[in-house]
């Protein structure tokens, strides 16, 4: 028989305001197994925890029930308290009388009644609890970073810096990501390439870091500390280790009409290409969709001009299997498609562009070599209209757009407007905004400078319609403060498109069993306290895959993710979750049903000799659970017809005891 102590928390007035805590502790004092019952203002405080420790010593407690806030909040706290008091931490159960009782009910009587029942259920469960000890598993001291943008680069550098090997998997032929496409960065206006490319070089030169470019993750198995990952390396038809990146092939390639994705299709590249001058790895890649040699066997020019002999038209996709201890997701973002926003005439006029396209138009390495020329006729635009919040902050029910604020648009639009006025004082620049959101160090000052020093016209209101007419774009907009409708003849319209997670994130999340929100951003383990960890152990989040972020924030999160990875890889062994399935060999039929439903392949079978009731022996097939692989979902326990399979910590008998206590 257990000797259970019950501790009812007031949580100040959070619980005590709706639940008669004295009545609860009195009622639970008479439950079977309970030898001590009390209540206190803040059980989670040091004084509260000491109270538990004292009671354990005084009353020789073997089990503890805390009636308090959600176990998701303080289960770990009270387990530690129990351990400190010399009780197995898994002899603690929490009755959630705050989130699921006092906070959702208003009436003292019903709240108290419910709290007592929840407490009884917890007591009933503790009566059947058994001490559990976590198993141990080794840690593979290597990390995988998925995505080679600034987030992935920073994370990889920081992990490598601590001495652990890191692999970066990047689906594009080069690392660098979105930041490589940017011109200048707010609020300091230093050029993106100047601060990014040295980091890219650092990655290339770091002997702890391997880059799998033009590759993607196709399969993830295993668990924290022991992931088995399959990486698919797409055939680039160029031998990576031999290519010197001289670029002779790209010059001689006769197929030059391929839309250049690095410049967002605003100019062309050749079928064999190096995305940009500072690409890492700086090796050519053949685009099989356009290469004549690969398509119909006619050409072969690149192979002839390559002095190094790096071209290999027979290259095949390659699958690499590698073991990792930790995985960092840094899959980043993309601007959303403007197809559904007909009113801005994005698909009708070449002179309506997104902000990312504007970045390329102003970049010295861009299609116009840094001169601000409008795409349709390469003339200098004199009137430019910037539209903010295109597709951001939309109604959840709206078919187009996203519900969230994309966070970075206010600042980059201010940057674009300021730079335009700085370089071309003869242009009129209008920015239509709903709100200007500039929470960040030196951000608001930056925006004010755009208005006060550079004379950018900030207008509170929205653009309703853009109509191409002749070589002008007729912009119809509202000025809410002046209460009038504006008609502007613009030469260029720039849309601050909302950003969304990269499309590869969703299938990756499924592979990693990491959860996502409705917008396909990865969910963090705790929104405030564990912002760089995924709820799936061993999976960490870096950059915009977790939510919209600017560069400073991305870099700091990348560093934070790296430090979490380092903390994990620094351990030699991981202690697992002891709440895993186990099979009672005496009852097991060996029927393989459990094995079929296990998502982790944690169950295997072995033949074992048993003594039968009639004193003969027989060989029987029985299930064996690998506790390091089992994650404790309990699916097998229900599939098992004989009830041989049970889940520690959530045993059939424990759940039934809870059901019985509630239904009494």
């Amino acid at each position, binding site marked *: 028989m257990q000797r259970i102590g019950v501790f009812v928390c007031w949580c100040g007035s959070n619980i005590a305001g709706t639940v008669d805590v004295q009545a609860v502790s009195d009622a639970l004092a008479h439950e079977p197994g309970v030898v001590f019952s009390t209540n206190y203002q803040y059980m989670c405080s040091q004084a509260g925890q000491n109270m538990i420790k004292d009671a354990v010593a005084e009353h020789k407690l073997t089990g503890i029930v805390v009636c308090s806030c959600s176990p998701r909040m303080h289960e770990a706290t009270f387990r530690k308290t129990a351990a400190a008091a010399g009780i197995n931490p898994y002899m603690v159960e929490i009755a*959630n009388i705050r989130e699921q*009782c006092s906070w959702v009910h*208003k009436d003292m009587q019903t709240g108290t009644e419910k709290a007592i029942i929840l407490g009884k259920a917890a007591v009933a469960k503790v009566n059947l609890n058994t001490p559990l000890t976590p198993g141990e598993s080794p840690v593979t001291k290597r990390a995988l970073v998925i995505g080679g943008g600034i987030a992935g680069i920073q994370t990889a550098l920081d992990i490598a810096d601590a001495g652990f090997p890191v692999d970066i998997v990047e689906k594009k032929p080069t690392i660098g990501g979105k930041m490589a496409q940017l011109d200048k960065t707010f609020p300091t206006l230093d050029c993106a390439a100047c601060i990014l490319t040295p980091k890219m070089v650092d990655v290339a030169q770091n002997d702890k870091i391997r880059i799998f470019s033009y590759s993607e993750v196709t399969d993830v198995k295993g668990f924290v500390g022991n992931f088995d990952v399959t990486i698919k390396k797409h055939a680039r038809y160029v031998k990576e280790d031999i290519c010197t990146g001289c670029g002779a092939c790209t010059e001689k390639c006769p197929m030059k009409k391929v839309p250049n994705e690095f410049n967002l299709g605003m100019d062309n590249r050749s079928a064999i290409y190096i995305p940009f001058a500072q690409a890492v790895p700086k090796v050519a890649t053949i685009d099989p969709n356009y290469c004549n040699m690969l398509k119909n066997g006619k050409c072969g020019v690149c192979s002839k001009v390559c002095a190094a002999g790096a071209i290999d038209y027979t290259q095949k996709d390659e699958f690499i299997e590698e073991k990792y201890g930790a995985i960092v997701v840094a899959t980043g973002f993309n601007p959303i498609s403007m197809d559904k926003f007909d009113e801005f005439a994005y698909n009708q006029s070449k002179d309506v562009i997104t902000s990312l396209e504007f970045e390329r138009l102003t970049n010295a390495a861009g299609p116009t070599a840094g001169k601000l020329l409008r795409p349709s006729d390469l003339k200098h635009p004199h009137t430019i209209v910037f539209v903010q919040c295109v597709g951001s902050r939309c109604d959840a029910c709206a078919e187009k757009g996203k519900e969230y604020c994309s966070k970075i648009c206010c600042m980059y639009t201010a940057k674009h407007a300021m730079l335009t006025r700085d370089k071309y004082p003869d242009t009129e620049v209008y920015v239509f905004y709903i709100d200007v959101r500039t929470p960040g160090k030196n951000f608001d000052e930056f925006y004010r400078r755009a208005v006060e020093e550079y004379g950018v016209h900030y207008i509170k209101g929205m653009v309703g319609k853009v109509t191409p007419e002749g070589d002008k774009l007729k912009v119809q907009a509202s000025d809410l403060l002046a209460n009038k409708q504006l008609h502007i003849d613009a030469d260029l319209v720039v849309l601050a498109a909302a950003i969304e997670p990269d499309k590869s994130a969703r299938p990756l999340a499924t592979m990693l069993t990491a959860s996502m929100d409705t917008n396909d951003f990865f969910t963090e383990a705790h929104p405030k306290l564990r912002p760089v960890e995924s*709820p799936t152990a061993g999976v960490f989040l870096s950059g915009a895959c977790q939510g919209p972020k600017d560069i400073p924030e991305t870099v700091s999160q990348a560093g934070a993710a790296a430090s979490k990875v380092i903390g994990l890889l620094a351990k030699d062994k991981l202690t697992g979750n002891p709440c895993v399935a186990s099979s009672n060999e005496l009852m097991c039929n060996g029927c393989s049903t459990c094995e079929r439903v296990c998502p982790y392949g944690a169950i295997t079978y072995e033949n074992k000799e048993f003594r039968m009731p009639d004193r003969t022996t027989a060989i029987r097939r029985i299930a064996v659970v690998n506790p390091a692989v089992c994650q404790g979902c309990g*699916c097998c326990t229900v599939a098992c017809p004989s009830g041989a399979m049970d889940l520690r910590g959530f045993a059939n008998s424990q759940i039934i005891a809870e*059901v019985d206590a*509630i239904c009494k």
Partner: protein
Amino acid sequence: MQVKEYKPLIVAFCCNWCSYAGADLAGNNRLNYPADVKIIRVPCSCRVNPMFVLRAFQRGADGVILCGCHPGDCHYTSGNYYTRRRMALLFSMLDYLGIEKERTRVEWVSAAEGAKFAATMNDFAEKVAALGENKRLEDLRCKR
């Protein structure tokens, strides 16, 4: 004689990762739902054995609801897919035995859906209350 006001007894099995967190969020946002709902935490909706559901009814529950992560979002990848099949068959069987189908329900509630959790519980409690006491599951054997 004083007639005691009928209060339904509802057992809610919530998976630890989504629905239990959704219930916590309902609490954080102070969204009311009837105190008749008592939550039992399970690691995954697939931990819920049909026996638990029947046991609850046997011991006098008036309604049993299972909440889990949305299909595709299971913390354990596939648990809720199995739950979905198991409960579809179990509920169909209970219906076949003439037991009111409103007494059982499966609802997918994510950790972000505190409002949905509260709304679901309000709706379910209301439907169960409308059915009154759970006589059928208790009395199948005894002809009256």
